[in-house]
């Protein structure tokens, strides 16, 4: 088509801007280092050598919300923690995504009581829910890949 035929073999690839941006976003999505309960253990093993999330460009857990793109809410959120979680979310730069990992973060799980938020979607908008108590690393990785599919189908005009 167009430019490749005109300029010959100069090592140029053309692609739509949308695809390029979404490719970049999905292949270096840094999660925030934020574990709240036992789900964090599974998140750690998903990051570690055996399951190795760095295959998907996620080897770097950022300790600062200002450097991260993805918040994995790994565990139950207490009502005292909820304002903290929202503040961390607000500090993350756009574009940002949230994965609610496990039953407790998604819907309160077994903790239907006064102390635990019944689903973290009351506090921050959630993109992907991962079921399980706790979810195995494969489940978390599947959740991440589902999020990637969502990000790849995003339109650039929506971010403008």
């Amino acid at each position, binding site marked *: 088509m167009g430019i490749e035929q005109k300029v010959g073999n100069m090592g140029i690839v053309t692609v739509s801007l949308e695809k390029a941006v979404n490719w970049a976003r999905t292949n270096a999505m840094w999660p925030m280092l934020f574990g709240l309960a036992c789900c964090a253990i599974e998140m750690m093993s998903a990051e570690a050598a055996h399951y190795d999330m760095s295959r998907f460009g996620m080897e770097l857990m950022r300790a600062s919300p200002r450097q991260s793109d993805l918040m994995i809410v790994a565990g139950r959120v207490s009502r005292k923690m909820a304002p903290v979680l929202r503040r961390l979310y607000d500090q993350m730069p756009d574009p940002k995504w949230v994965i609610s990992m496990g039953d407790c973060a998604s819907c309160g799980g077994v903790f239907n009581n006064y102390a635990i938020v019944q689903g973290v979607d*009351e506090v921050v908008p959630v993109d992907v829910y991962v079921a399980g108590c706790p979810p195995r690393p494969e489940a978390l990785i599947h959740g991440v890949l589902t999020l990637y599919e969502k990000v790849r189908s995003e339109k650039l005009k929506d971010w403008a």
Partner: protein
Amino acid sequence: MDEHIQSVVTVFSERFGTGVYEFRGEVSLILTSDRIVAACQSLRDEFDFELLTEETAVDYWPEQTPRFHLVYRLRSLKHNTIIGLRMPVDGNDPTIPSLIGLYANANWFERELWDMFGIHFEGHPDLRRVVMPEDWVGHPLRKDYPLGYEEVQYTFNFDEIDARKPYAKE
């Protein structure tokens, strides 16, 4: 019963008129709230109970007089023994003397008791919430406090609960 505990029980039933109750080898003394400071003073200074390991409460709602039982556990490192104290307290505005003058670690125990059960401690220097958020209303470990704030979602009431659930915005 351990010799050391036995001597405590004998002395205390004379001096403070305490009741005794034993369960699986653990001895508890039952006493009234006006005696608690004097009793702990004598346990600490005369009977070497140097350590306050626990201070907690039980709610026997709907009983009102007494509604709460304050439970203390004191440990003697020298004699390797544990003794319990139980103190019935009325449900209507429970106020009892603080143990901070004797055991400094009673500070946070009593703050937690205020937080969870709404029990007042006279003489406590800083009685504010320690576990729940500062603007919390009520005392959650009281038996008449509602357990949860959301109904369990089943297929038949899913939409109804979903409709009034507050979802966060961007």
